[in-house]
């Protein structure tokens, strides 16, 4: 009954946050199982999934926590931000309110997550071209101002889902491995649940655009 992905070099905990119905669970199921359901049930509390990717010949295992979007759940979900080294902050490009609420979600992260968490702003449902209410440039500029990476995705047609996760995990990996070169750790495995990997940017160049 053991798991197939027992072996890994790095383990990074990542959280998915954002308003209800923006497609957090759909992004997760697209990334971890390459599945999409037009309607998936609302997430209750938090749900967990995992997938491993390769970067520079190293296996990086992502432990992804999908959280309920309803505001009422924040007391429960914010407990899961601890130890997370990355966050995908998702909004729906066709729902302006979900974009307006991004600032509130950033505040949530500031209050409850580790200081050095890497945050990627994700505009999901990019397939809904005719319903778009947030111009790409606007969100991109917002992300730049706030030191976030930015990407637009569609869990429905798969656009950019893989790059979104790949980019944030790679970025985390770069920071961690750079840090390791300067300060060799005791073990060679980073356990996100034991000791969160320190992903403080070491150089100005670290927080680049993930993609255009």
């Amino acid at each position, binding site marked *: *009954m*053991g*798991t197939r*992905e*027992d072996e890994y070099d790095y383990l990074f905990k990542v959280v998915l946050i954002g308003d*209800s*119905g923006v497609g957090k*669970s*759909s992004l*997760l*199921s697209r990334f971890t*199982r390459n*599945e999409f*359901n*037009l*309607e*998936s*049930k*609302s*997430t*209750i*509390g*938090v*749900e*967990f*999934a*995992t997938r491993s990717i390769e970067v520079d010949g190293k296996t990086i295992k992502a*432990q992804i926590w*999908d959280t*309920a979007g*309803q*505001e*009422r*759940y924040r*007391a*429960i979900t914010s*407990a899961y931000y601890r130890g997370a080294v990355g966050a995908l902050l998702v909004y729906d490009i066709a729902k302006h309110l979900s974009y307006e609420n991004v600032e509130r979600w950033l505040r949530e992260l500031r209050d409850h997550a580790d200081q050095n968490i890497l945050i990627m702003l994700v505009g999901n449902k990019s397939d809904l071209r005719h319903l778009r209410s947030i111009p790409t440039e606007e969100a991109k500029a917002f992300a730049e101002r706030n030191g976030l990476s930015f990407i637009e995705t569609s869990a429905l047609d798969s656009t950019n889902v893989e790059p979104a996760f790949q980019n944030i995990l790679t970025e985390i990996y770069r920071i961690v491995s750079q840090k390791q070169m300067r300060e060799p750790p005791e073990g060679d495995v980073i356990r996100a*649940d034991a000791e969160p990997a320190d992903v403080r940017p070491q150089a100005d160049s670290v927080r680049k655009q993930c993609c255009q």
Partner: protein
Amino acid sequence: MSGSSYQQFQASVNDAWDLGDDDIISGIAETKISRAISETAALNVINSHRNSTKNVNKSDVKVESENLKPKEEALAVRKNEIKRTGGGVGSSSGLIRHYPGRPRPVRLSALASREESSESKLERFQQLLENPVLDLDELKQLSWSGIPTKARAVTWRLLAGYLPANTERRAETLERKRADYKHLVKQYYDSEREEDTYRQIHIDIPRMSPLVALFQQNTVQVMFERILYIWAIRHPASGYVQGINDLVTPFFMVFLQEAAPGKELDNFPLDKLSEEQRNIIEADSFWCLSKFLDSIQDNYIFAQLGIQYKVNQLKELIRRIDLPLHEHLQTHGVDYLQFSFRWMNNLLTREIPLPCTIRLWDTYLAESDGFAIFQLYVCAAFLLHWREKLMLEKDFQGLMILLQNVPTQNWTDSNISVLVAEAYRLKFAFADAPNHLHNAGKSDR
């Protein structure tokens, strides 16, 4: 705990009820039943359970008040269960995994097909229900082990405290409550709505059971919307919390089944029913849901304190019942909140097929002191049911994936009968004996 202040709080947010309607429920809520009486009652329930479900494994309900050895007994029961269920579950669909968010097959058609103890039980229900002076306790005892489909709708109304025990008052009460609901719709739903609450409900309803045609009908979705919105507005201390929507479904199905007996429900066109029939389904679902949620409203208040409290109780309970399992979970960093939050928030509706939920609610509704505490023991029994599989998982990931996707897709009513019997046994052994194991340990020395 501040029981009294919570009661005050609850009183302040509860729906207003005409006093006369509530004789059944309030009588129970306000009486502090002594331990001796409750134990006697408990034994009665167990006995009647034993009598009414002879086909259920005997060891499931073996209760010996002296000399209880919970651990060994729990293990014994589990072994039996595994033998009983292992073949079917493992062999036919062991590879089908269910993931969070992935729609599950609902198999509503199975609702009518499995009748545990058939005709004779139905007759006993009919006799009871036709009696001008209904013996509610007897009805509870009989219902605890499952209600025949044909008697379910009426029995649920009675057990929920919606329908008065007194037969003379029933028709008039129903008429009045249904008219009241119509007014509530006008007052709250047909006028200006509270934006945030409505939006959240409106987002959640269409994605409840995406693969079942029944729930994709606009008529059905609007019924759910009205029920939930009105409930939420009238319970401001909790409001709508995601997951409560799932708790409407069993009531809706049971009352729909009553209106369309013997029909295939998976894709039943609601518009085939008369408007009056639809109104009855909706109003009765609303009132029964309201009654049902009364005893667990602290689950849905700010920070879901009721659930957090119960999750801690579950943790403590498992530590006492099955230390190796508890330590296994702890060692691998699995926190009880991570998996049991949903179990409690949605009352296991996300973990088991809908027909099983309905069967489980027969028991919940029949629990004489409300099911809030009992549900904790059901969660404990549910966790222990998977202990062998869990012990085989070697890491956090494996444990979490299993715990969030337990393979219940082939579960039937008999699995639920075993589950509630085990829960009952645990409650009997542990609920009133907080230091049971500690004391046992000391006396051994």
